[in-house]
């Protein structure tokens, strides 16, 4: 059984069918990609996989445990972290504070009047480590709102990593990033890939082709094809498209 398995997921909103029948699996220590054209159901799929929407049918199993319909916080508690397509940072807080809030147990300890959070060097060190991992060493005290867009995205990934996840989901991480920002993010994720199991939903095919071990293509609310970047690239139509040109250089 795979590390993470979704079987026959269905999701409707009234007459609108967004997920027809989605069966997906992700392996541990791999980077799995989900891609699809606009309106294919990518974000809904992401929200069902991470528990933000309850599916109308089908099941989701993480590391042998059925997590279908579980509350998002319980899913997070099992070690699944996710980023959001829109930024979810505390703008008026420094980079390191944003990470500290997300560290396990920080919030509960902070309610303890006998506990001095800023004076806790272990928590501080941990948060600094996370920032270093996402390339933000030296930016610890910068307010989140003052960070450039690309660094905000990196900080957001840092917030997700702070919970020490066993599986990290990223929703359209290249959204809003320019060519440079996307290239830097690709380097960062290439690094993180060495030590985390990651799932990325992305419409930028080139980005995924560069990073993913396996890609599932979603369209019409179904997985229409799956394979390694090389397998998908071998398709004659892909060869003839701009993607084929990009993939070969």
């Amino acid at each position, binding site marked *: 059984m795979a590390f993470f398995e979704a079987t026959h997921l269905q999701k409707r909103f009234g007459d609108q*069918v967004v997920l027809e029948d989605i069966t997906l699996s992700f392996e541990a220590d791999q980077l799995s990609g989900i891609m699809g*054209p606009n309106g294919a159901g990518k974000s809904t799929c992401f929200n069902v996989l991470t528990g933000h929407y309850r599916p109308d049918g089908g099941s989701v199993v993480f590391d042998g445990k059925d997590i279908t319909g579980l509350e998002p916080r319980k899913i997070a508690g099992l070690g699944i972290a996710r980023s959001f397509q829109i930024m979810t940072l505390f703008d008026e807080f420094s980079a390191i504070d944003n990470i500290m809030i997300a560290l396990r147990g920080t919030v509960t300890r902070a309610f303890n009047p006998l506990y001095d959070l800023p004076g806790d060097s272990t928590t501080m060190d941990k948060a600094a480590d996370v920032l270093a991992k996402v390339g933000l060493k030296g930016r610890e005290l910068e307010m989140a709102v003052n960070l450039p867009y690309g660094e905000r995205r990196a900080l957001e990934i840092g917030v997700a990593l702070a919970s020490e996840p066993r599986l990290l989901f990223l929703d359209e991480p290249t959204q809003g990033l320019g060519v440079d920002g996307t290239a830097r993010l690709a380097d960062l994720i290439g690094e993180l890939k060495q030590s985390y199991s990651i799932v990325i939903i992305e419409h930028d095919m080139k980005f995924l082709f560069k990073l993913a071990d396996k890609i599932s293509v979603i369209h019409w*609310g179904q997985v229409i*094809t799956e394979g390694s970047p090389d397998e998908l690239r071998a398709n004659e*139509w892909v060869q003839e498209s701009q*993607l084929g040109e990009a993939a070969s250089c």
Partner: protein
Amino acid sequence: MSTPQNTPMLHVKGLRKIYQRGLWNKEETFRLEADFQIDKPQVVGVMGPNGSGKTTLFELITGSNQPTDGEVMCAGQNIHNVKYRERDRLAIHYHQSYQVRHFRKTKPSFMMERPVSDYPMVHLFDEPQFNTQDGYIGFMLDFFKRLRAEGRLVFLCVHPNEKFHVKIMREACESYIFVQKGQLSFADDYDNLLENPDVQNYLGALAAY
């Protein structure tokens, strides 16, 4: 659940849909007639001018439109007798990009049957958006082939106005239905389809590709 052997995947029996206007002096504005049977899994190309009845035909096959006469049997089951929300387990209509499933309700759902299948037997793709720049066409064609290999019946409706549309049809489809003014004609392969002067007329210069 399985379907009995020798049951056609799709049997369209004496199907007629007539649209009229006027209350007293009824005047017929459109008439679609279809009568055919498809026994085996395959990918069927559907072509025809705008307003010829292609989408109406798809709506009748998927049970979202009520026929004036006749019936549609999917895997031996009359689709118009199946519960509305579950009709797409028999035949599913993929619109260009969005998936809205709306059914004209004629009687309460509890009086209707459950479908014999839990994954659609018949998949009807209504003018899917093809874009040569991103390579998705290749993945979509793979999907049609996979559905067929899994024993499904696939209809692919394309209104060719570019060379690559003809290429897609020739690559994906094994047989063809040409719809014009509500009448259907059938062809076993692309060459056979082109023998029809109406098709040549419709495709114009694209017929050469």
